[in-house]
C-alpha cells in the first residue's frame, strides 16, 4: 500500500513554499536531526499502540490461549488459522462485511456525487448546507445507530407507517427479525452517517475541474451526460479514488451500528464484530489474534486492490493538479 501512496507531498509553487537550502552539509545535518526530533513523539505514539500489539497478535495467534485458562497456553503453529478458515461463520461474516462495503460505498458514491453537484451550484445559504451536511459526519455513530434503530422499530418507528405503500412493508414488519431487512437497516444507518464525508471529498474534487473545460465541451455540443462522463468524472478521478479508498476501508471496519442495532443477530455479524466477540466476550486470545491478523491482512489487500483498480497513484495525481 505504502509503495503507491507514499509521496503525497507536492508543494504548490504559488504558495511561496521555501525550498530548504542545502548550502552547507552542517546545516543539512542539523535540519535532519531537528526534523527527526520533531516527528519522534508522534511516531512513537503511533508505533507503540499499533506495531507492537500487532506483532504480539501475530505471536499469540500461534498459541492455544484462552484468558480463562492461561495455564493451558500451548504452541500450536497455524492451527488457529486453520480453525478460522475452516469455519463457515468466518466466511459468512466476511461475506456480510464485503456486501456492506460494496453496497454502501456504491450508494454513497451516487448520492454523495449528487450532493456535491448541488453544493457546487448552490449560491444561497452555503453556510446552512455546510452545517447540515456536517451534522451526520460529526454525530456519534452509536447515536445515529439508535436513531435508525428507533426509526425502523415496529412499535415506535415511522418507517412502517410512512412507507406502507411500498410492497412488502406493512405496519407489523419487524425489520430486525430477518437477515435482509436487518442488513438493510444497518446499511441505511451507515449510508446516512458517512455520505456527507464522501460528498465533501467529491466536492473538493469537483471544484478543481476547470469550468472553462466544461464550457468548451458545451460549446462543442456535448450533452449533459457526455460532459459528465467525458469531462467531469475523468478529471475528478483522484478525488473519487481518495474518497472510495477511505470510505471502503472505513466501511470494512463496520462495528458500531451492528453492535447497537442487532448485536449480530439474524446473521448480521461483521468481521470486526466476530473478532471483538472472540477476544472480549469469549477471551479466546489465540483464535481472536488469528482473526485480528487475518482482518489486518484483508485491509492491506483491499487497499492494494483499490489503488490498483483505479490505477492512480496519489503522487502522480497531485503532481498534475
Amino acid at each position, binding site marked *: 500500500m505504502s509503495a503507491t501512496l507514499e509521496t503525497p507531498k507536492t508543494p504548490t509553487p504559488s504558495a511561496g513554499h521555501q525550498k530548504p537550502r542545502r548550502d552547507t552539509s552542517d546545516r543539512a545535518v542539523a535540519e535532519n536531526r531537528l526534523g527527526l526530533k520533531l516527528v519522534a513523539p508522534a511516531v512513537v505514539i*503511533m508505533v507503540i499502540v499499533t506495531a507492537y500489539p500487532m506483532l504480539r497478535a501475530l505471536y499469540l495467534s500461534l498459541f492455544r490461549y484462552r484468558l480463562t485458562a492461561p495455564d493451558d497456553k500451548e504452541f500450536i503453529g497455524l492451527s488457529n488459522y486453520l480453525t478460522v478458515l475452516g469455519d463457515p461463520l468466518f466466511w459468512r461474516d466476511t461475506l456480510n462485511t464485503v456486501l456492506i462495503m460494496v453496497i454502501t460505498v456504491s450508494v454513497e458514491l451516487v448520492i454523495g456525487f449528487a450532493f456535491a453537484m448541488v453544493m457546487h451550484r448552490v449560491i444561497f445559504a452555503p453556510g446552512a448546507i455546510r452545517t447540515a451536511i456536517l451534522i451526520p459526519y460529526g454525530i456519534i455513530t452509536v447515536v445515529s445507530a439508535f*436513531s435508525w434503530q428507533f426509526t425502523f422499530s415496529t412499535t415506535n418507528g415511522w418507517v412502517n407507517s410512512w412507507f406502507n405503500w411500498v410492497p412488502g412493508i406493512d405496519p407489523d414488519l419487524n425489520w430486525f427479525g430477518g437477515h435482509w431487512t436487518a442488513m438493510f437497516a444497518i446499511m441505511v444507518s451507515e449510508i446516512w452517517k458517512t455520505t456527507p464525508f464522501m460528498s465533501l471529498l467529491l466536492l473538493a474534487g469537483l471544484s478543481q475541474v476547470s469550468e472553462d473545460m466544461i464550457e468548451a465541451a458545451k460549446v462543442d455540443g456535448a450533452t449533459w451526460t457526455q460532459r459528465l462522463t467525458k469531462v467531469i468524472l475523468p478529471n475528478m478521478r483522484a478525488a473519487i479514488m481518495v474518497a472510495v479508498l477511505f470510505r471502503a476501508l472505513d466501511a470494512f*471496519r463496520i462495528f458500531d451500528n451492528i453492535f447497537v442495532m442487532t448485536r449480530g443477530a439474524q446473521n448480521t455479524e461483521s468481521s470486526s464484530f466476530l473478532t471483538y466477540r472472540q477476544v472480549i466476550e469469549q477471551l479466546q486470545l489465540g483464535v481472536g489474534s488469528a482473526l485480528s491478523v487475518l482482518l489486518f491482512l484483508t485491509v492491506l489487500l483491499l487497499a492494494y486492490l483499490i489503488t490498483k483498480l483505479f490505477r492512480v497513484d496519489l503522487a502522480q495525481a497531485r503532481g498534475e493538479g
Partner: protein
Amino acid sequence: MATTDTKTKVGTGVGFVAILVWCLLPIAWIVSLSFKTVDETNAGSAQFLPKDASLDNYKALLGLTDDPVSDAAASDFGQALLNSLVVSLVATVLSVLFATLAAYAIARLEFRGKRLVLSLALAIAMFPVVSLVGPLFDMWRTFGLFNTWPGLIIPYMTFTLPLAIWTLSAFFREIPWEMEQAAQVDGATSWQAFRKVIVPLAAPGVFTAAILTFFFAWNEFVLAISLTSTQKARTVPAQMSYFVGPDPFNPPYGQLATASVIVTVPIIVIVLLFQRKIVAGLTSGAVKG
C-alpha cells in the same frame, strides 16, 4: 439557454431541500422521541411527533427526580459524560501538540524518513482498530491501564495523530513562512516574529485539526467498550450501548433519545460555529495533501 438555466436552478433548489431533509430528519426524530413520555413509547407510538410533549426524560437523565432508579441512571450518564469529556479533550490537546511538531517538520524541514512518517500515518488511518483490541486488552491489564482514562487516551492519540498530521502539514505548507524573516528584518525579535506573525497564521489550522480530533475521540466506540469494564472509565457511546433499561424487550426509547440529544448538542454547536474550517480541514488532508 434560459430553459436549461431554469432547470439547473430548480434542480439545485430541490437538491438543497433534499440535503437538508436527509441530514436533519434523523436528528429531528431523536429530538421528537426525547419529548415522548415513557407511557407513550411503552404503548407504541408510530407517529413522528409526541402526543403530549414532556420534559420527563430530561428531568430523569439530569437527576432531577426522586426516583432512585432513574437517579442511578442519571449519575451513570453524568460520569460517562465526564469520562468522555476528559478523555476526548486530553487526547485532543496532546495529539494536536505532537501533530503540530511533526507537521511543522514535514512542511518545513528536509529530513530522512519524511515520506515514511506520512505513509505510517496513512497506514494507521486505515488500520482495522478491532485487530488491536485483543493484544491491547492483554497489555493494558498488565500495565494497570485497563478501565482507566489514560488507557483510552493513549490509543485515541494514536488513531487521531494521522488525521491531525495530514491536516496540519497540508495547512502549514500554505503558510508564507518568509514573513517570519521579513518581520525579523523589520526589527522584530525571533520570539516576536513567531508570536505576532506565525502563531496567528498557524492557529486556524491547529484549531481545525483539534476539532476533527475531538470529533473522532468523542465518537470512538470499539476501544471504549473493549478497554473499559465499569462506569468508572466508560465513555458516552459505550455507556449508551449498555443502557438497555429494566425491560430488554422494551428499550428505553425516550431516555436513549434524550441522552443522544444531549451528547449531540456540543457537536451541533461546534459545527454551527466552525463549519467552514471543518470542511476545509476535512478536504485539505485528503485532496490537496
